[in-house]
């Protein structure tokens, strides 16, 4: 490429989304236009897929690696580690709860395999606060030191979770100091108030899982940074969180649990960007499932239900997603003489290109049906042997199931716009019941990677204000300013920073009419 054609000023960003089946990567320019996307299989060793996707992205686009300024990674590593109970580290837990909370001990709702993976060191120590910040009982430091001493040499991280620590974190912070004193400065300590909100068991579970994932995330970040370096990319490295914002890699190393389930969020944000719509349903059809989310005012609608990860209840805010078992690899079965046709819920997954009928395989899949019906043209597809009647029946079932799922996620009886993304979106016909417009944006099959690249950086603040000295409005304004400054400090463009979360808890029994304020602000890089 001649030098003159290359815009001297142009810089790029890479977004990568590692899913269960595919690893998607996207290259965006500084105006956030998509330059190129690639899709590779997610490999056993997940890092190989990441390296391959970057290699192809650079080779196929011809972009100079030195011009890549930012690199973002959204990954399913941590979710997989929990679900498969693999690579988890041993964690010591100190719950600051007694005399309260003793009727439900830590890990009560964990199954034995997960308990075994995380280890036996869980203790309930004296301490805790009331909902208004009053102390229930003081810490017994000798007791805590004893518990920490028992963990010596047997844990790779410590998690601390105190009753009402989101209201008053002092005791948790003190236990962290003691943990460093006894187990060494290098011992990672997860404090529950930094991880979750009210609901002690869910917050405790999330803190324990966070501690157990530290090794996993360290491998991910190291692998990603090494991959980038090996291609001569010297970029700011960011990891995607499940709320659609990014964390710097050094922050991710401390809070891996925040990466859980960032995939659907990335898809919804990518779909919003590609389509230019702010209010729509996003239907993401992959190899195994169809995930439907709601885009409301440009952000994913959050779920109100408790979220389970690997069978453990946590209290994360997750996008409200409805998943149904229909994807490009979903298996279609025909009964005797094509009479009863059934669809899924099982899928050939990443083996589609080997097992699908049109690719010469022996399994009839939803993709075969779509190609047979002319929804999509695939060079060299072998459609001759496919039974047209079976395909039509399967198509009716697939369309009806997707329409039904769309209807479930709608918030009113009016027709809605649907943004179709994901490799499997070729399954869907051009008209659906209850849908005003079907939008199939360019790069629809890499919306997740594009969403990863778009992520915003955030800043947070959490402070107690005395309303005897200022008004409620002044307190909120001060907290918001502080959060905005934190976001700017983290690299956000001031002009784009918005408040994305704001909550206040009155601390009725604290002196001086106290108000605890938490604010999160986010903006573009």
């Amino acid at each position, binding site marked *: 490429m001649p030098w003159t054609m290359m815009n001297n000023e142009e810089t790029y960003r890479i977004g990568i989304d590692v899913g269960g089946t595919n690893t998607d990567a996207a290259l965006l320019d500084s105006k956030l236009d998509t330059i190129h996307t690639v899709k590779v299989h997610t490999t056993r060793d997940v890092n190989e897929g990441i390296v391959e996707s970057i290699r192809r992205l650079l080779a196929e686009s011809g972009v100079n690696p030195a011009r890549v300024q930012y690199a973002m990674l959204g990954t399913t590593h941590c979710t997989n580690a929990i679900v498969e109970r693999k690579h988890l580290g041993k964690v010591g837990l100190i719950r600051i709860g007694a005399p*309260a909370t003793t009727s439900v001990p830590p890990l009560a709702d964990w199954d034995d395999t997960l308990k075994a993976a995380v280890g036996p060191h869980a203790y309930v120590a004296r301490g805790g606060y009331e909902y208004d910040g009053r102390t229930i009982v003081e810490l017994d430091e000798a007791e805590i030191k004893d518990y920490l001493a028992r963990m010596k040499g047997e844990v790779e991280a410590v998690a601390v979770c105190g009753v009402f620590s989101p209201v008053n974190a002092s005791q948790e912070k003190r236990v962290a100091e003691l943990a460093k004193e006894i187990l060494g400065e290098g011992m990672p300590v997860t404090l529950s108030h930094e991880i979750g909100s009210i609901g002690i068991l869910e917050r405790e579970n999330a803190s324990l899982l966070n501690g157990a994932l530290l090794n996993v995330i360290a491998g991910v970040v190291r692998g990603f940074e090494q991959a980038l370096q090996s291609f001569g990319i010297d970029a700011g490295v960011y990891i995607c969180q499940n709320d659609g914002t990014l964390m710097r890699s050094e922050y991710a190393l401390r809070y891996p649990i925040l990466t859980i389930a960032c995939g659907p969020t990335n898809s919804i944000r990518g779909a919003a960007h590609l389509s230019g719509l702010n209010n729509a349903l996003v239907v993401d059809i992959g190899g195994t499932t169809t995930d439907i989310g709601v885009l409301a005012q440009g952000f994913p609608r959050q779920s109100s239900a408790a979220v389970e990860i690997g069978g453990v209840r946590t209290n994360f805010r997750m996008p409200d997603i409805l998943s149904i078992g229909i994807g490009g690899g979903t298996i279609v079965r025909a009964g005797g003489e094509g009479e009863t046709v059934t669809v899924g819920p099982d899928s050939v997954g990443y083996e589609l290109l080997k097992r699908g009928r049109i690719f010469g395989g022996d399994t009839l899949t939803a993709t075969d049906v779509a190609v047979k019906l002319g929804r999509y043209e695939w060079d060299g597809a072998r459609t001759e042997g496919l039974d047209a009647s079976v395909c039509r029946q399967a198509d009716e079932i697939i369309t009806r199931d997707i329409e039904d799922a769309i209807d479930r996620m709608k918030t009113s009886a009016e027709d809605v716009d649907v943004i179709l993304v994901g490799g499997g979106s070729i399954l869907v016909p051009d008209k659906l019941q209850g849908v005003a417009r079907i939008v199939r944006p360019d790069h629809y099959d890499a919306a997740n990677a594009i969403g990863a690249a778009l992520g915003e950086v955030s800043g947070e603040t959490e402070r107690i204000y005395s309303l005897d000295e200022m008004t409620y409005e002044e307190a909120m304004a001060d907290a918001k300013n502080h959060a905005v400054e934190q976001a700017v400090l983290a690299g956000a463009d001031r002009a784009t920073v918005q408040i994305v979360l704001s909550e206040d808890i009155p601390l009725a029994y604290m002196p001086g009419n106290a108000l605890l304020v938490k604010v999160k602000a986010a903006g573009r890089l």
Partner: protein
Amino acid sequence: MANNNTDQNKLTALDEQAVQYIAVGAAVLGTGGGGDPHIGKLMALETIRKYGPVRLVRPEELEDDSLVVPLSMIGAPTVMNEKIPSIEQMTQPLDLIEKELGRKVSAVMPIEVGGGNSLVPVIAAAERGIPILDADAMGRAFPESQMVTFYLDGIDCSPITMADERGNGVLMHAIDGVWEERMARALTIQMGGSASICDYPVSGAQVKKSAVPHTLTLAYEIGKTLFESKEQKQNPIEALLKQLHGYALFNGKAVDIRRRTEGGFTRGEAVFEGTDAEKGRTMRLYFQNEFLLATEDGRSLAVTPDLISLLDQDTGMPITTENLKYGARVTAVGFPCDPRWRTPKGLETVGPKYFGYDIPYVPIEELAAGKGGNL
């Protein structure tokens, strides 16, 4: 999992399986409120793992002069989800009652079978080695202390005992259930927003006359039906309606939900549009922690104190006022309440007017037959 209920017709002990079933059944009987049974369930499961199954005793098996004590948690469910009770806190109110009355407690019972309080007495029963009674004093869930069948029959709510997790214990004499509610609420705030409480200590004879019998078994049966239907991939709602002598009120999806917090209660209304065969219908559901009133086109479909529950159309699993989401596909079902709630005093205590709905109460059986209910 060992099955300790080998007698197919009779639940005689609560094992882990029974607790799982009761937690779900209690959520159905909780009519959208009553608090999440999750913590109560974990407390009960932990207890059974430690002590083995807890014996269940039927009202008719009680000696007339035995002492039975309801045990429950009072306060904000949000607080209890953070500041989980201590083990001691669950037995201390019993100790205080025994000391005051100078006799031993023969059995504990849930004050309400709906929602979170249904399983709270399990831990005290196991710790003390006494049975839990297969009965409650509501047959559902209600938000205030005087809303019990014992109150309707004029049974003294005192002595009342309460405990927090620090070891603070309270002995209280209230002139009636309304005063108990006022004073206990005030103490609960000082105790940090959640406390254990024993009220309405009753004799075996009083239980036989005034309690709502066999409600833990009922919750168990409901849960069993829902779980088994799920395993067999069958629609559980029909089976459930038969079991509870209930009525399917409406099939539809939530299209509008409005909630507001007033005086510690979640109040609001939800609008549903009919689906499939019921397209064109619109149901309004009014709630104050519990679902209290269902209407359609200026006519009642079901009115408190009859039970109104929302079930997921596919799984039959109960949906609470807090978890109800836009787009949820539901079947609204109604069940007749215990007949004592339909007496003048019952309706004065928990009828529509008490909750601020200026409409007459018409039993669900009559509404279902198309009689009355015009607003």
